[in-house]
């Protein structure tokens, strides 16, 4: 019996002590007609050897392509030590640190994680993490509505350059509470927030403004100007940021005159593999005055009864297991294991290492951008400062041309980027291309020749 240690003698002894004649008798409180029939839809079990064969065959089907897709999930080098240590059973198979004395490892690690996130974002307080960047942004939106004392508005303003899937997730989560998201237009000339369009929102009452940095298209927004504009209107500012980029760019806490109020983002670039989209983790940090509106777990440093330093869950009065229907969120878990990996990653790289990762990624992306500028049929749409991700447009105006080109490149073993065609008429046959530090000069050359070949072949088929 897989993973069940009972011998026949064990079972007999246990049944005798309980005073029943069979295991089946233990279910005598369940009405007989409700008892399940054999689960015929489930196959027979496999041993580990056969399971590994099945799974290896499947994993191999998805292997081997050179990936230039970013769009919210980024391929970075992950030091071997990160997951070697993270996968230790003591981290992997522990649970929520309810018994603090027997969970000091996890608790101290999360305290260190919170400290690193505060440092990266230049904020005062971080929680122990949320599920992912998109759902984290939804929590940040809910938090801003609770926290904004100046405004009773249940509306939040979004830069149109926020990742479209994030916009979707936020709307799907918060609309259940009657909260509205208003999305500002994108300036098609530079794929950034249309600063002229701000005026249209000057008279309206919003609880917060969400500013992405870099934005979905890789471009850098005028965060200082936007922050001052929003705070001047009584809005809180939520900075949606890439943690790798924070090694290079002004952190949200330093935006504008007063700094953003909440920083949130996807933690995946910090040592978490792409792995089909999860588990990742969302980080969220805020100014100290907002801490009681923060959702999720927070770890505090304290002392034990002998005065020795120790770590414990704190401010639990915000949480569902105490406050029930009045909690700040229904969230129970954090993404503990992913946070463990990220903390080790940040420790190994340090500020200097992370900054080199950011610079090297951006350098590679810029090299590719420059090399594609002379490709026939390709226009570079990114024309402002950007970070490790940029937009190209295929000049052939045929519907589905970008999709066909990407399909052709995929057959050549290159995942050429994220197709933006669905995201606005102006983005027809546009592709979002990402390059990180893991790509070599040769990889970039392969990309270019694959793109040229794909355009030729697809054009020929038309």
């Amino acid at each position, binding site marked *: 019996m897989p*993973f069940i240690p009972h011998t026949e003698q*064990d079972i007999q002894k246990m049944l005798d002590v*309980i005073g029943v004649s069979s295991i089946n008798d*233990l279910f005598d409180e369940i009405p007989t007609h*409700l008892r399940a029939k054999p*689960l015929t839809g*489930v196959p027979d*079990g496999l*041993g580990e050897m056969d*399971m590994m064969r*099945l799974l290896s065959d*499947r*994993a191999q*089907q*998805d292997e081997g392509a050179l990936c230039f*897709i970013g769009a919210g*999930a980024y*391929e970075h080098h992950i*030091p071997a*030590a990160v997951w070697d*240590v993270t996968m230790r059973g*003591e981290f992997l*198979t522990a*649970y929520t640190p309810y018994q603090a004395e027997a969970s000091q*490892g996890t608790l101290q690690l999360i305290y260190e994680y919170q*400290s*690193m996130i*505060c*440092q990266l974002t230049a904020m005062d307080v971080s929680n122990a993490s949320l*599920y992912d960047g998109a759902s984290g942004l939804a929590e940040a939106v809910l938090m801003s509505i609770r926290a904004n004392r100046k405004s009773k508005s249940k509306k939040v303003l979004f830069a149109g350059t926020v990742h479209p899937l994030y916009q979707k997730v936020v709307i*799907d989560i918060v609309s259940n509470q009657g909260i509205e998201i208003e999305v500002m237009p994108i300036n098609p000339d530079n794929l950034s927030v249309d600063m002229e369009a701000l005026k249209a929102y000057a008279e309206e009452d919003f609880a917060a403004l969400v500013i992405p940095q870099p934005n979905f298209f890789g471009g*850098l927004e005028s965060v200082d100007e936007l922050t001052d504009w929003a705070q001047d209107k009584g809005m809180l500012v939520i900075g949606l940021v890439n943690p790798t980029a924070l*090694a290079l760019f002004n952190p949200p806490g330093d935006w504008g005159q007063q700094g953003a109020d909440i920083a949130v983002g996807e933690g995946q670039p910090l040592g978490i593999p792409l792995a089909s*989209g*999860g588990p990742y983790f969302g980080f969220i940090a805020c100014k100290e005055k907002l801490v009681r509106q923060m959702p999720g777990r927070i770890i*505090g440093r*304290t002392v034990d009864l002998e005065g020795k330093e*120790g*770590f*414990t869950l704190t*401010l639990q009065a915000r949480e569902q*297991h105490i406050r029930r229907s009045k*909690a700040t*969120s229904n969230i129970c878990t954090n993404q*503990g*294991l992913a946070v*463990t990996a990220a903390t080790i990653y940040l*420790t*190994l*790289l*340090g500020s*200097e*290492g992370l900054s080199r*990762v950011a*610079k*090297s990624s951006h*350098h590679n992306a810029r090299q590719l951008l420059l090399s594609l500028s002379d490709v026939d049929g390709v226009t570079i749409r990114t024309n402002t400062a950007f970070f490790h991700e940029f937009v190209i447009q295929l000049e052939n105006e045929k519907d589905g041309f970008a999709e066909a080109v990407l399909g052709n490149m*995929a057959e050549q073993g290159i*995942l050429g980027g*994220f197709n933006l065609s669905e995201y606005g008429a102006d983005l027809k046959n546009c592709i979002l291309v990402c390059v990180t530090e893991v790509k070599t000069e040769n990889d970039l050359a392969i990309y270019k020749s694959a793109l040229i070949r794909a355009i030729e072949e697809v054009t020929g088929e038309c």
Partner: protein
Amino acid sequence: MLIFKKGSQGRFATAQAPKKVAEVADLPAAMLRKKPALLPEVSELQAVRHFTNLSRRNFSIDTQFYPLGSCTMKYNPKGAQRAAALPGFINRHPLAPESHSQGYLACVYDLQNILKEVTGMAGVSLCPMAGAQGEFAGVAMIKAYHESRDDHARTEIIVPEAAHGTNPATAVMCGYKVKEIPVLANGDVDLAALKAAVGPQTAGIMMTNPSTCGVFERQIEEIAKTVHDAGGLLYYDGANLNAILGQVRPGDMGFDVLHMNLHKTFATPHGGGGPGSGPVAVGKRLLPFLPTPIAGCTEGDSGVKSYHWVGQDKLPDSIGRLSAFMGNAGIILRAYIYAVLLGREGLHRVGEFSTLNANYMAVLMKNAGFELAYKDRRATHEFIITLNKQAKNLGVNAMDFAKRLLDYGYHAPTTYFPLLIPECFLIEPTETESIDELEGFVEAMIAIQKEAENSPEIVKGAPVTQPVRRLDDVKAARELDVSYAE
């Protein structure tokens, strides 16, 4: 000692960063960070040693018996960790085209079908990233269902008072009011109170069965009828699904929607508090509302299967998207692998042996003089003892027993939950523990009872073998220190 205090300026794990520091002259200077973030400055060995040593300050399933009630701390098979980390899985970009995702999609599709079968439901979505998000998705679907029928009067969700705190918190996140109903002394729901509570304002009821009282709700069919007759739907909180896996299915009990906790029932690791995974399963009525994306499959003439994503374009009434990509994929894979390893027979045994272990422990505890909260009821996969007498007569409460257990090398059971039983332990041994471990735990409890009678200060001063003694939680909240600064 904190990692921040172990470093020296300028030190880092040089093997791990790109060598060539490229120029970034194209970036505007005004946007560049002026003051570097204060991150640790240590060597690779220092980092490895620090975190390895931190790990040793944890209790875990791999090192200890961890009978945390309602959390299902069972063995997490190593094979599942190994297979989920195969390069093809670990390196797949979430937005990779379907042509480069057939292996992963096949696993997702197969798991959807297995979960449909074990729950007796019509459809499954694996999107929710945790149990609480599964609850959110489930209640959002109930709301979408009523609204699709133009039934806007349903503003209330009913929750039995013994429910997990997430249930009422979730109902509020979905814009509902919460109505709590009492639970009888025998652990069953107060049916009369339920009948009085339902009406045209009832959107649904959220229940766990077996309940958090560690007993099977015997009136479940009548509860289902009462709520359905009033036009409401039944939500099943899958926290305790381990108890009934292969024995009775939520779909057959009359539930319309449920979430599962794959990190409990399907043995994926708890990771120090996550990541989890909380798939939802629904009956026919709620199929159009499932969160997306979902894996679909078409079979060609030659029998070759081809897999694809079903998004909101194909499921327009879906409650939508819960994560940027598709949930906690790596956890979904591990749960699938667990189901592959166990198979039909193995899944059936989960319910059997988790129940056998809990009942055996309950009888041993009772025979040793401990008071069961529901002594006339059959235990399920977990059971409750109350240490109320010890607290009153000896001044040694459940928290003291819990802390002393740590000294005996056992993680404490869930304490002070459910809230309606004073000084309680909710004990869940799971099916993967051997009889020796169960007996060892009971012996430790007997020894602590003797200590409580003869020298209570030992129990009240526990733990003494852990890295720290009891912590000052009041100081932690009053003098908030949640981030290190120099």
